């Protein structure tokens, strides 16, 4: 009774909940993910049927009674009719295996082939993996319209997106299950991944290749927007950082450009031009900070800046000693960088 309770109350919702949501290969939101989900389904069904048949045959063989006519003491005695039947069974099994394996190979070829066939001019986005965050650069035919951001990819609905994947240090892997399959980011070698989002929404993605202590906290979100909203958002991202609206924010800008922060972070429109950490020009417009570790609020920005090693131990941002006033000012400033 207890056990059944446990199964019903814990395992069932878990199993069912695993199928839907913002990060699920079984709940596809674009053609690539759909063909992969179809492939997973087809393989599961075909292999399931084969497994069932094999189990049935094994069961029958185990349970079948030995016939009275079977002379156990002359096992090598030949019976031509029997031999023929055995031969036919083996032949049928071999043929079925060949047909099934060929069939699975063909559908898997067709499904993976369709992944690279995109229609229309793709939006090219460069995604570079660092230990343990993502740099996102939106390219454009004119170089002055390149935008660098981090830990969040925004894409227009219905238009194919080609990600150009590279890595700065070790191998990472980009996986957004609701939209596409995995693709590795390899130092010194450029990879590509093309996908299309069919519906507006927020899809969670994650690093899928162990890359060091904070691999688990190396996530990002893919936000699919209607094309006009995307264009407006991209124009906003092209602008320099917001100017401080009050004294506190102005003091915060002084901290961000005078302290060590400026050696690692870029805030366009200020002297801060480091390239070792995420671009902070519009940090407050992103949903999360530190690669999906915390939601972007003034409080979590302050918590992160005050003690990055407490929030995400081992990450590459050091604790920069700040006074309480400096911390308050710099987190107000960061929260204003919409």
């Amino acid at each position, binding site marked *: 009774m207890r056990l059944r309770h446990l199964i019903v109350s814990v395992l069932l919702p878990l199993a069912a909940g695993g199928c839907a949501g913002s990060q699920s290969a079984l709940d596809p939101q674009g053609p690539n993910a759909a063909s992969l989900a179809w492939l997973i389904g087809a393989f599961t069904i075909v292999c399931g049927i084969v497994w069932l048949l094999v189990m049935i045959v094994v069961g029958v063989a185990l349970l079948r009674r030995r016939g009275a006519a079977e002379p156990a003491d002359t096992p090598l005695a030949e019976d031509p009719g029997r031999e023929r039947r055995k031969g036919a069974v083996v032949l049928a099994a071999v043929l079925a295996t060949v047909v099934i394996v060929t069939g699975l190979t063909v559908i898997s070829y067709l499904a993976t082939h369709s992944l690279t066939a995109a229609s229309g001019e793709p939006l090219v986005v460069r995604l570079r993996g660092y230990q343990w965050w993502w740099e996102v650069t939106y390219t454009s035919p004119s170089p002055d319209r390149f935008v660098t951001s981090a830990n969040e990819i925004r894409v227009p609905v219905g238009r194919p997106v080609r990600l150009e994947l590279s890595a700065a240090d070790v191998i990472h892997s980009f996986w957004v299950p609701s939209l596409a399959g995995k693709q590795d980011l390899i130092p010194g070698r450029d990879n590509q991944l093309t996908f299309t989002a069919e519906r507006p929404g927020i899809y969670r993605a994650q690093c899928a290749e162990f890359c060091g202590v904070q691999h688990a906290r190396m996530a990002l979100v893919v936000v699919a927007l209607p094309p006009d909203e995307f264009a407006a958002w991209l124009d906003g991202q092209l602008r320099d950082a917001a100017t401080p609206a009050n004294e506190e924010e102005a003091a915060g800008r002084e901290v961000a450009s005078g302290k*060590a922060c400026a050696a690692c972070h870029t805030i366009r429109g200020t002297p801060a031009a480091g390239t070792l950490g995420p671009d902070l020009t519009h940090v407050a417009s992103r949903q999360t900070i530190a690669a999906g570790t915390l939601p972007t609020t003034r409080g979590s920005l302050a918590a992160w800046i005050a003690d990055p090693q407490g929030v995400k*131990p081992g990450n590459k941002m050091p*604790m920069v000693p700040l006074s309480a006033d400096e911390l308050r000012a710099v987190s107000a400033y960061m929260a204003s960088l919409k």
Partner: protein
Amino acid sequence: MKRRAALVMAVAMLVGCQREQRDLRLDPPVAAALDQVAPTANGIGGAPPDVYVALGGPYESNAYNLGEGKRLYTWFNCKGCHADGGGASGPALMDGWWRYGADPVSLFVSLRDGRPNGMPAYRDKLTTEQIWQLVGYVQTIGMASATTAAPSRNDEMQSRPAENRAPAAADLPTPPSR
């Protein structure tokens, strides 16, 4: 005899469980105290802060700290002026010859406050902990004797003997007397 062998094995296995401690989060008061070096008047030599001694000099003997120092050496473009330790527009750091002293305090002051003939000050670019990590690393690239710890291996081609192949300095010609 058997008992003794078992005991030795047990001790060996226990020692094998020992893992190097990584200090990821230096407490702010310790970091502040580590900044209190007492260099001599000309900025060469001097006394390390008491905490440095109390901590047991973790920046020269801890592989994690050395590895971080190695990363920072590339990140903060020390390579741009000192190359892989062999020297370019900045002096060589591995020839065993130092303009401002080879001891940790001199190196710390070289990095934090800069030096007059073109070494920039990193006071506002690096934290105290990072400067110490670099000091530890700079000491390993030209070391004359083996230490028990080494940073991670190079990702690029080696332009000099690896840090864990001491003594590296012994392979080099004697530095010119300047």
